[in-house]
C-alpha cells in the first residue's frame, strides 16, 4: 500500500510539472489562438541557463532560476515579436504553426551548437531532503513537495490575476474577440505579448522543477515534456486554466502508474492513447468550452 502511495505521489509531482507547462500552452492558445510548439524548448533553454549560471556561481541556484525566468520571458516576447506577430492574420493558421515548429528546431540546434550533444548532469535546485512518514516506510522527497506546492500557487495566482486585474480581464476579452477588444481600447498586441511573457516565465519555472526531478539535461530535454503538456492541455480542455491543471495531474499519474504496473515501454503509448480517446469522445476536453454558434 505504501508503495502505491509513493507512486501516486510521484505521479502527482510529474503531473504538477506537466500542469505548469500546460498552463503556458493553454494561456497562449486561449489568448493568441496559436499552439506554440516551441514552448517545450523554452523549458530546455531555462534549464541550460540555470545549469550555466549556477555552475558559474558555484551552485547558487536561486540566482540561476531568477536569471532563467527573466531570460525565458525575454525569449518568449522576442519569439512572439519576431516570428509569430508578422504571421497573425495570415491566410492560413498553419503558417504560424509551422513557424513554431521551426522555432523549436532552431532552439534545439542552437543548444546543440553551444552545449554539445552530451547529456549534462543537472544539480537539483531543491536541497531539502523531504519528509518521512509511517516510520520510514513512506518518504516524500523535497523536490516532490515543492513541485506540487508551486503548481498550486501558480494556478491560484493566475486565476486571481485573470479574474481580479484589469490586465487579466483584458486577456479574457482578447481571447474572445480581438476586434471587439480593440474597440474597448485594449492594446491587443501588448496583451498577447504579456501572455507570452507569462507563459515563458512559467516554462522557466517548470524547467527548474523538471530537471531537479529528472536531472539529465540535453538539447531535447524539453521536447517530450512539451508534447505531453500539450496532451494535458487538450485533455483538460485547451484554453482552460483549471483544465490544464487537471489534465496535467491526470497525465502525470497515468504515466507513472502505467510505468509501474503495466509496462515502462508502453507508458508513452498509453499517454498518447488518452489523447486519441479524448479527441474521439470529448474533443473539447474535460473543462473545454463548447464551440458556440454565433447568434
Amino acid at each position, binding site marked *: 500500500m505504501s508503495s502505491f502511495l509513493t507512486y501516486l505521489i510521484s505521479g502527482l509531482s510529474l503531473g504538477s510539472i506537466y500542469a505548469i507547462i500546460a498552463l503556458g500552452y493553454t494561456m497562449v492558445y486561449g489568448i493568441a489562438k496559436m499552439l506554440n510548439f516551441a514552448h517545450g524548448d523554452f523549458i530546455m533553454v531555462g534549464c541550460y541557463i540555470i545549469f550555466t549560471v549556477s555552475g558559474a556561481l558555484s551552485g547558487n541556484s536561486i540566482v540561476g532560476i531568477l536569471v532563467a525566468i527573466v531570460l525565458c520571458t525575454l525569449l518568449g516576447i522576442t519569439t512572439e515579436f519576431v516570428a509569430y506577430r508578422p504571421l497573425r492574420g495570415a491566410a492560413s493558421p498553419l503558417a504560424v504553426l509551422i513557424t513554431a515548429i521551426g522555432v523549436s528546431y532552431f532552439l534545439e540546434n542552437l543548444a546543440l551548437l553551444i552545449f554539445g550533444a552530451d547529456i549534462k548532469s543537472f544539480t537539483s535546485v531543491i536541497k531539502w531532503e523531504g519528509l518521512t512518514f509511517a516510520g520510514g516506510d513512506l518518504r516524500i522527497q523535497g523536490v516532490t513537495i515543492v513541485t506540487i506546492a508551486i503548481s498550486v500557487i501558480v494556478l491560484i495566482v493566475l486565476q486571481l490575476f485573470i479574474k481580479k486585474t484589469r490586465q487579466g*480581464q483584458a486577456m479574457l476579452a482578447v481571447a*474572445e*474577440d480581438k*476586434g*471587439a477588444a480593440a*474597440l*474597448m*481600447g*485594449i492594446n491587443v498586441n501588448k496583451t498577447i505579448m504579456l501572455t507570452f511573457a507569462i507563459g515563458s516565465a512559467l516554462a522557466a519555472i517548470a524547467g527548474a522543477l523538471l530537471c531537479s526531478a529528472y536531472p539529465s539535461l540535453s538539447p531535447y530535454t524539453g521536447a517530450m515534456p512539451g508534447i505531453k503538456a500539450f496532451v494535458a492541455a487538450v485533455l483538460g480542455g485547451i484554453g482552460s486554466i483549471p483544465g490544464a491543471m487537471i489534465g496535467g495531474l491526470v497525465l502525470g499519474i497515468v504515466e507513472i502508474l502505467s510505468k509501474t504496473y503495466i509496462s515502462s515501454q508502453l507508458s508513452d503509448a498509453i499517454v498518447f492513447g488518452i489523447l486519441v480517446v479524448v479527441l474521439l469522445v470529448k474533443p473539447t476536453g474535460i473543462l473545454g468550452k463548447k464551440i458556440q454558434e454565433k447568434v
Partner: protein
Amino acid sequence: MSALLEVKDLSVYYGVIQALKGISFHVDKGEVVALIGANGAGKTTTLHTLSGLIDADKGDILYKGENLTKIPNHKIVSLGMAQVPEGRRVFAEMTVLQNLKMGAYTRKDKAEINETLEMIYKRFPRLEERKTQLAGTLSGGEQQMLAMGRALMSHPDIILMDEPSMGLSPIFVNEIFKIIQDVNKDGVTVLLVEQNAKKALSIANRAYVLETGSIVKEGPASELLNDESIKKAYLGE
C-alpha cells in the same frame, strides 16, 4: 457648425478588391447621421476603418484635429469615439457587469465610472437586473442593449452604430431606435449604419447613400425619405 468628424477621400482595399472608392462625408457635433445602403456597399468597412480595425489605404479621417488613420486602434476610444459593432460582439463568457466595465477600460477614475454605470442602468434597467448573468445567455435585444451600454461606458462624444436593428423583433427595433434618439438628446453625436433605411432616415438629421463603395447621394434625411429613387431601392415602396 464645425464638423466633429470629417472623412476625406477614403479608400480601402481587400486584396485587389476596392471596398471603399474614395468616399468623403462629415458628421457635425450633435447630429444623427445615417449611412444607408445594401449588403456589401461598404458600410461596415467604413465604420471598421474609422475605429482602426481596418487600415485605410488612402484618404484621411479627421476627428477633433487628429488624423485617425495615423493613430493605433486602441487609442481611438480615449479620444471619445466608441463603436457598437455589427452583430453586437459582446463578450459572451463574461458577465453583463464585466462587459460594461470593459467598455470603461480606458478610463481611470473609479467614481466617474460608477456614475456612468448608474446612468446606464437607468437607461437600460434590464442590464442591471441581469448584471451577474453571462452575456452569452442574453436575448438578441438584450445583447444589443449591452453592446450599446458597453460603448456608452467609455463616455463617448460620438458613437458609431453598426446595424443595431439586425435580427431583432419589431418591438425591440422600436425600443433601440428610441434609445438612440435619447442618447443623442443627451449630447452624443451618432453615426448610424443601417439596412433598415426607413427607420434610420426617420430619426436622422442627414444621410448618405452608399453603393458599392461610393457615396451616390446625400442630403437631409427628410428629403431622402421622399426621394423617388431611394424609395424604390431602399424603402420598398
